[in-house]
């Protein structure tokens, strides 16, 4: 991994933090306000690719863990890692990795449709697939209850997936950061 890659990783960890400082955005027609941070997860995977995207989220979680209040709503510290909703946090690096993997797979024909596929699978499915069982386990509630409770956030996540995809496609054209696998393999 080159120093430049470390800088990209740090950059997206910082972007996650700045998104956390933004106030939640209320969206007409949806009862739950959108916090921007899953947007950051999707962008990290879509712009940086699997390895760097996943690492960016790990670094972000490390920064949260060492006590910076950079999760949405000014949360931070070790406390958030043991709460019932902590599974959603743990899912982020994996989600970014999966989004990155799919993005790299689609890279040659990358457009809005493929970006959406990647962000919906990685940024919505993966996050809930990890977050919901964790909620059920840590909170001692049945899986079905945890599932219905979490569904309130899905509309917001769909909006975010569309937004992230639009941005990712534009950045893909303007400043592509992902290099194709053949070249990445030779990079240290």
């Amino acid at each position, binding site marked *: *991994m*080159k*120093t*430049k*890659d*470390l*800088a*990209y*990783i*740090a*950059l997206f*960890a*910082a*972007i996650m*933090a*700045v998104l956390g*400082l933004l106030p939640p*955005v209320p969206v007409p027609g949806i009862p739950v306000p959108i916090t921007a941070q899953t947007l950051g997860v999707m*962008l990290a995977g879509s*712009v940086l690719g699997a390895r760097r995207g996943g690492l960016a989220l790990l*670094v*972000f979680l*490390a*920064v949260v*863990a*060492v*006590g*910076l*209040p*950079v999760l949405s*709503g000014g*949360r*931070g*510290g*070790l*406390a*958030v*890692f*043991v*709460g*019932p*909703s902590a599974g959603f946090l743990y899912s982020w690096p994996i989600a970014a990795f999966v989004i990155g993997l799919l993005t790299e797979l689609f890279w040659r024909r990358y457009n809005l449709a493929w970006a959406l596929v990647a962000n919906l699978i990685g940024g919505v499915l993966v996050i809930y697939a990890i977050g919901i069982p964790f909620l059920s386990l*840590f*909170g*001692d*509630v049945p899986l079905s*209850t945890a599932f219905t*409770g979490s569904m309130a956030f899905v509309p917001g996540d769909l909006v975010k997936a569309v*937004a992230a995809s*639009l*941005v990712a496609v*534009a*950045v893909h054209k*303007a*400043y592509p*950061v992902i290099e194709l696998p053949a070249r990445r393999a030779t990079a*240290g």
Partner: protein
Amino acid sequence: MLSLYVPGASPVHRAPAGLKLAVLAVLGVGLFATGRLDLVATALLLVLATGLLWARLPFRALTAQVRPVWIWLAALFGFHLLVTGPLVGAVAVLRLLTLVVAAAVVTATTRVTALVAVIEWLTSPLRVFGVRPARIGLVIAMTLRFIPLVADRAARIREAQAARGADRVRLAMVVPLLVQVLRMATTVGEALDARGAGDVPGRRPRRRAAAENLGTT
């Protein structure tokens, strides 16, 4: 600097960061191993005593970190009241509350730099896989430096667009922002390389220096 650390000189503040994290981990395992209300309640009292009396933290420092979890805990208790009964519910809620408060105590009594050092230490076994812990320290240092930079660029672009009459945050502003900061990160990476940060053979010393120069402020 934004941080949840509360300065102090108590024994809890001065205890090694690694020890505090280890105690937290043991507490977590222990709490989930027991289902007895009296044990869990005792643990909560001990943790509160540690934070408020021993570490002499202001009560607000703890509630600030616990507040975001309240809604979850209340919902959890409500659910148990309806389905499994008040006892199981009380244990489940107190168990999580204890852990959250304990984690808050560790965060409030430990400097960011000390915790970063623990991360470097914890990741040192990964050397086997070619991971260099000092570079993890470098990445975290860069992240802390980039946060105000990114926030500043975002504010500037927002102002520029407001001056042209756009009053809401729009996607059109996110793309130029991302391109700007990506370009900046590329420059920072090149600048670090020019100063020897990317040198592989020399084991550590230079990279340490780079991490310190970037400054965690």
